[in-house]
Every structure is written in structure tokens, then in C-alpha cells.
């Protein structure tokens, strides 16, 4: 009996909720890094949130950044160790709501790092509070009658912002999802492009990944995937917004 496909060697076990998308994303990242031959040359800068529940599975060099500051920390690591593959791994509450200054400044300066953002449209670990990516009308712990767009603004689109705004010259920006085999394979290709951009010194690359959150959406894993296929993808279209030259 010969093994033809197994979980990357650098991954252990994690304690995430059943049906959570984090587990799939870290497996995709590690598969790509193994294929690129960089498994002993990588540092993950972890954000705060459910990411902290996922990082115990990452059995390689990792650094726990302060809340929202993973992009800034990754820049520092990359500047002193330019030969190492450095990526920030964050949630949407961490990278956008709390750390938008660090994320945007890293993109603006076109720092040679990669940022992966898991977008589950709420703050997962603290119990499902509203974040900048929450859909208008969506009920969360802190928007009990649904998000009021007049009071709290409209959903935040980071990849489109850094790909399309004047003054930004990022190398790669894309949005994927982990809801079926097709989108998972598509997301893996995006992760590969983002990491290759960093290895070639092209500059900042970001991949946002839409991920189910069964616990805080109060849905079954199957209902969560239907929720992403319907209203969430309607708000956050998948695709590459800035491709590599």
C-alpha cells in the first residue's frame, strides 16, 4: 500500500469548530509551500482571534503579533530576513477592523510580504460580534437587529481597494472561498500566485478567503456553505483583482 496524497508534514492537529474553513486554508498554504520547496524556510506571523486556535497546527517557525499588527510585524521580519518566506495569517476582524492601518500601509508601501485574510464576516473567537465585513442586515452579537449600514458603514472590500485605488501598486490581490472542491482548488492557485510573487520579490500580495463559521452564524456546516454561495458571494465576488505581470 503506497501513500499517494497525505496532509503536509508540517501540519499537526487543531481545535477549531467542526465545519470551520481555517483548517482547509492552512492545509492549502502548507501544500503550496511544500510544492515550492520552502517548508524549512517559512515564518508565519499570526494575528489574534480564531487564528490562535489554528496556529497550534502549524509546526514551524511562527510569531504571535499584537492584535491587528501582523502585517507590520511581517514587514519587520521580512526586512531583517529577506531570504525567508514570510506570511501574515489573519482574520477579517484582525486585519481590517482593528489592523486596517497596518494592512493598508503594508500594501501602500508595497512591502514584499504575503497576507492571508480569513473572512468569516464576524469576530469569530469572541463570540460573533460585528466586523467591517458583516453584511448589511446581518444579525450578530453587537448588531442584534441586523447591521445598520447608515450607522456603521457598508461592507469593507480590501482586495478591491488595494488593487484598484490610485497610489497602490501591489503585486497580487485576490479573493477565494472554501465551500466546495472547485473553489478550494481555485483558492489554492491564488495562494500559489501570492507566494510566488513574494519569492520573486514582486511586492505585496493578499488573498482573502471566504470561510464558513457555523458556531457564530448559528447554522449547520451545510447551511453555512449555502449562505456563502448566496448572499456572501453576491457581496464579495470571487476572483483575481490584480494579477501578476
Amino acid at each position: 500500500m503506497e501513500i499517494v496524497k497525505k496532509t503536509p508534514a508540517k501540519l499537526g492537529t487543531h481545535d477549531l469548530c467542526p465545519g470551520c474553513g481555517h483548517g482547509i486554508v492552512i492545509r492549502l498554504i502548507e501544500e503550496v509551500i511544500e510544492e515550492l520547496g520552502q517548508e524549512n524556510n517559512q515564518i508565519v506571523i499570526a494575528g489574534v482571534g480564531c487564528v490562535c486556535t489554528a496556529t497550534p497546527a502549524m509546526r514551524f517557525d511562527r510569531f504571535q503579533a499584537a492584535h491587528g499588527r501582523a502585517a507590520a510585524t511581517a514587514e519587520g521580519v521580512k526586512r531583517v530576513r529577506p531570504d525567508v518566506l514570510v506570511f501574515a495569517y489573519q482574520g477579517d476582524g484582525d486585519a481590517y477592523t482593528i489592523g486596517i492601518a497596518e494592512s493598508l500601509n503594508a500594501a501602500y508601501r508595497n512591502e514584499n510580504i504575503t497576507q492571508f485574510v480569513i473572512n468569516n464576516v464576524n469576530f469569530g473567537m469572541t463570540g460573533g460580534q460585528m466586523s467591517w465585513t458583516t453584511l448589511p442586515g446581518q444579525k450578530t452579537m453587537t448588531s442584534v437587529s441586523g447591521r445598520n449600514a447608515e450607522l456603521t458603514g457598508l461592507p469593507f472590500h480590501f482586495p478591491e481597494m488595494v488593487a484598484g485605488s490610485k497610489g497602490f501598486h501591489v503585486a497580487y490581490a485576490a479573493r477565494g472561498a472554501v465551500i466546495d472542491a472547485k473553489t478550494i482548488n481555485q483558492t489554492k492557485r491564488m495562494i500559489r500566485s501570492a507566494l510566488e510573487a513574494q519569492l520573486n520579490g514582486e511586492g505585496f500580495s493578499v488573498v482573502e478567503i471566504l470561510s464558513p463559521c457555523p458556531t457564530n452564524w448559528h447554522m449547520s456546516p451545510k447551511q453555512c456553505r449555502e449562505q456563502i454561495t448566496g448572499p456572501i458571494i453576491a457581496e464579495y465576488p470571487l476572483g483575481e483583482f490584480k494579477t501578476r505581470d
Partner: protein
Amino acid sequence: MSKKALINIAACKGCGFCVDVCPKQALSLSAEFNPAGYNYAVIDEKACIGCGTCYTVCPDYVYTMVEE
């Protein structure tokens, strides 16, 4: 030579993602519990064609694809 999926029952959290996507309906959730208290995925080995879709979607690294 045929490909098959192996299941690590202890790692399964019973989310049912693999059951939904299996093109041959070879997977189902058990009535029993694993040591962590979840209904784990069980495989009908005769129906499995070793396509690896379950490996692709599993968030908890339950599957290993083997060739025998």
C-alpha cells in the same frame, strides 16, 4: 492498482463536508461516537473510486489517499 481513501476516525469532527461532496455517495456519518464525541465519517470501500475530493475538502486532515 486502485486508489482508496483511508480515514483517521479519531481526527474526525463530523462536519459532514465530505459526505455532501462525495461523487459516489460512498461516505456517511456513523451512529457511533469517536473518542472526542463526534459522529465520524465511515466509508463504503466498494463504492470508493479514490478521487480524493474528501481529502480536498476535509478541514480536519482525516483522509489519506493510498494506492494498493
